[in-house]
């Protein structure tokens, strides 16, 4: 009767009637739920469903317009992050908050000890961390510097940081976004050990299978409202998807493409490691017209560098870039554009768009110098505006006027502008780097359709994504990236998720023959 006991247990956390508005947007609308001791509750919802603002209210970063938060029977004062911490609530953010140059041990004890007595408590702290790591399967060397750790290890440090502070309630925001399938399994095992020890966990995600795998209850949010709470035992994938999106999920099956001539070839591309740019080691890659090549892999394994090279943002130290068989000299963003490469960057806010400039100014940014938009160095305002208006119309961008600043648009609308800019002039080669990250389901489908459309028109497309489902749904061929190297390609459907996961983790014989760099496989 263990389950009965769980239900009767006093809630450790109670949110009651939480509402918050930002301008016209109701981010949370009268949300109430309880978290019981020893329970994993999944908070499921699309981006923009209100998960993050709810957690920010819980943590005192935002003040709710109405509603209360109670932890262990005591009300938390609104707008006081320190109170949430003292009450035993800890959070592991999607973007880690670690000091890179410091060791694991230092990061964990940072802020828990008075500044001048750090020394004498180190031994005790080290012992405590060691025992926490063995108890909960969070292996990590306390003396490593954070810079030397993999993403999975960094996440373990974040969890240890929370445990070290004796949290009773642990909130994990999209914890699996950065993990390999294998690491995800290990994380789930850790979470189960934690709740067995009496912790309570809120697991925020928009991935259905993970939610089903790890939680006891699923709370579904949509458009700021709590739609339904479902016990995980009775929930199905399609039911949850339906609740989350407001309609039954249609699993689109995209038809395969017909590959033609090779448009872009990377030949033994090698780069040195530099800050934020992992090294590449003998990359061989051929992109054919009418084909989508998907690059699967855990982020941080060289995808950013590979993308930077194709975008023209970086030159390889060694190796050749060939466009239509022609080796390229003096490679740059301008050259890439002149070679008719359409580019969808990974980070639309930081490099895709200039938030402080208008829609018009942003959509012309790759072509303002052409005769179409300027003469003798003077911009043709009319032509620029007409172009922007046509994009707003054709791509159904939700914005009041082409004169508003781009930072006021939603992520989905911003991405539409980027697509429109990249697809203008029917590019022969398209680089789509994380094209759907952070978008809601409608926008994701839109981006997918546009990519398939471009492929059918004959574009050679490279799709880099952390979302395995996306890679598997869209790609005609899949290559896996691990530690700066690319695996040989496999056809769509040839490899199971488990097999892909093995390759993503850098295991398996496909990597063996490439040890010397300059792999003999041509992807």
């Amino acid at each position, binding site marked *: 009767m263990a389950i009965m006991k769980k239900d009767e247990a006093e809630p450790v956390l109670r949110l009651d009637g939480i509402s918050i508005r930002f301008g016209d947007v109701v981010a949370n609308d009268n949300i109430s739920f309880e978290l019981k001791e020893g329970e994993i509750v999944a908070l499921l919802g699309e981006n923009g469903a209100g998960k993050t603002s709810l957690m920010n209210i819980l943590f005192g970063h935002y003040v709710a317009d109405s509603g209360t938060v109670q932890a262990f029977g005591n009300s938390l004062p609104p707008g006081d992050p320190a109170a949430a911490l003292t009450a035993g609530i800890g959070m592991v953010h999607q973007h880690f908050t670690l000091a890179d140059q410091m060791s694991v041990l230092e990061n964990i004890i940072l802020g828990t000890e008075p500044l001048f007595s750090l020394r004498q408590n180190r031994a005790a702290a080290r012992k405590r961390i060691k025992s926490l790591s063995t108890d909960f399967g969070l292996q990590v060397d306390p003396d490593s510097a954070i810079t030397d750790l993999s993403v999975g290890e960094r996440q373990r440090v974040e969890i240890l940081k929370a445990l070290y502070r004796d949290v009773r309630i642990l909130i994990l925001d999209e914890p699996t976004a950065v993990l390999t399938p294998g690491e995800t399994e290990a994380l789930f095992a850790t979470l189960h050990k934690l709740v067995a020890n009496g912790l309570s966990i809120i697991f925020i995600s928009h991935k259905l299978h993970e939610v089903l795998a790890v939680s006891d209850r699923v709370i579904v949010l949509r458009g700021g409202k709590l739609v339904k709470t479902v016990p995980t035992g009775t929930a199905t994938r399609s039911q949850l998807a339906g609740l989350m999106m407001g309609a039954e999920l249609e699993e689109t099956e995209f038809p395969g493409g017909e590959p033609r001539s090779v448009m872009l070839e990377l030949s033994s591309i090698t780069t040195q490691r530099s800050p934020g740019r992992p090294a590449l080691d003998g990359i061989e890659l051929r992109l054919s017209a009418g084909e989508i090549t998907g690059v699967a892999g855990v982020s941080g394994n060289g995808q950013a560098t590979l993308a930077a090279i194709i975008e023209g943002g970086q030159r390889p130290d060694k190796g050749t870039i060939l466009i239509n068989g022609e080796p390229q000299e003096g490679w740059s963003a301008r050259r890439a554009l002149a070679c008719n490469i359409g580019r969808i960057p990974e980070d639309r806010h*930081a490099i*895709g768009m*200039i938030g402080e*400039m208008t829609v018009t*100014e942003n959509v012309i*940014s790759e072509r*303002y110098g052409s005769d179409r938009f300027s003469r003798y160095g003077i*911009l043709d305002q009319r032509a620029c505006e007409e172009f922007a208006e046509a994009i707003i119309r054709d791509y159904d961008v939700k914005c009041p006027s082409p004169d508003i600043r781009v930072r*006021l648009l939603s992520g989905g609308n911003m991405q539409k502008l980027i697509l429109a800019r990249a697809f203008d002039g029917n590019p022969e080669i398209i680089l789509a780097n994380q094209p759907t990250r952070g978008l809601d389901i409608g926008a994701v489908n839109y981006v997918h359709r546009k990519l398939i459309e471009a492929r059918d028109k004959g574009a050679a497309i490279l799709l880099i994504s952390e979302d395995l489902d996306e890679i598997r749904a869209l790609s005609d061929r899949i290559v896996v990236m691990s530690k700066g190297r690319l695996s040989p390609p496999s056809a769509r459907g040839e490899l199971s998720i488990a097999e892909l996961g093995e390759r993503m983790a850098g295991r398996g014989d496909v990597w063996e023959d490439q040890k010397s760099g300059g792999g003999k496989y041509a992807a």
Partner: protein
Amino acid sequence: MRLEPRETQSAAMTLAYPVGAIATTLVIASILVMLAGASPFNVFWLVLKGAAGSQFALIETLTRATPLIFTGLAVAVAFRARLWNIGAEAQLYIGAVITVVLGTGALPLPSAILIPVLTASVLLGGALVLLGPAFLKIQFGVDEVVTTLLLNFIVLLFVSMLLEGALKDPMGLGWPQSKRVIAEAQLPRLIQGKRLHFGFILALASAMITWFIMKKSTLGYEMRAVGHNPQAAAFAGIPVNRVLIKTALLSGGLASLAGYSEVAGLKGNLTLDLSPGYGYTGIVVAMLAMLNPAGVVAAAIFVAGIFVGADAMSRATNVPSYIAEVMVATALLTMVTAIMLSRYRIKWR
């Protein structure tokens, strides 16, 4: 207390905030005025009268505004592309040096040719002064705030050396001053017998041209893109370094015209007190104008008016004219605050 970005900015708001900033400045200044034992209303009235209450006052204000328009434009252009040019003072003095070197008889040409030649040479010289810091920034990542600021002192000492040596006027009774520019090099007076000179027209024309470049040209577009987000600009294929170089040339050139116009239009020769900090005040002018070239003209006249008006006021009361500096500095602070408030709203709680 928390700041939240505003989603929209109404036209009324863009107008209300600068007005509010100036009102706040007056309130803060009145405290000091009262401490000096005078009535704020009387003092501000005298400042206004001294700045614009007569033809003489008005002409004096516009004359004083002329160099500020040039340095203000120089700063506005550079800051727009996030090139922090703090060295307008140095560029101004280099402009003055070139004017004296070429304009004291070295080029025996008629006015119609000599003035354009001088203008072009000064533009070029000032542009080259800022090229060094821009190059160091691009090539080695050296902070241009430091290099341009320190260059001010180097140039000022260099000018001092010239005035004690190569450029010293032998007929100057030993004073560290240059020879006077020849009549053909002088910028004509706009009104016979008054101090306002052709430099003012040159400043207005520069403002219009700068406005056109910033608003309508591809260069202005590139500068704004580089200023707002250099990574995104580079991604879009905008040649960021080349844009920074062009910005430096434009900014340095504009600032050096201030020195040219002061020597050839007003003073006639070069002395070490040619500029009472016009280069630095240009930063205030540009900020007050929110980096808008058209606004620079208005802001320069406003700042010049306060200085001129405060001089007149201090002659009539016992409030020192230093109040002008306090007012200008306070106006800068309140303006920066107003800009922030127009972009963010404060939420208490």
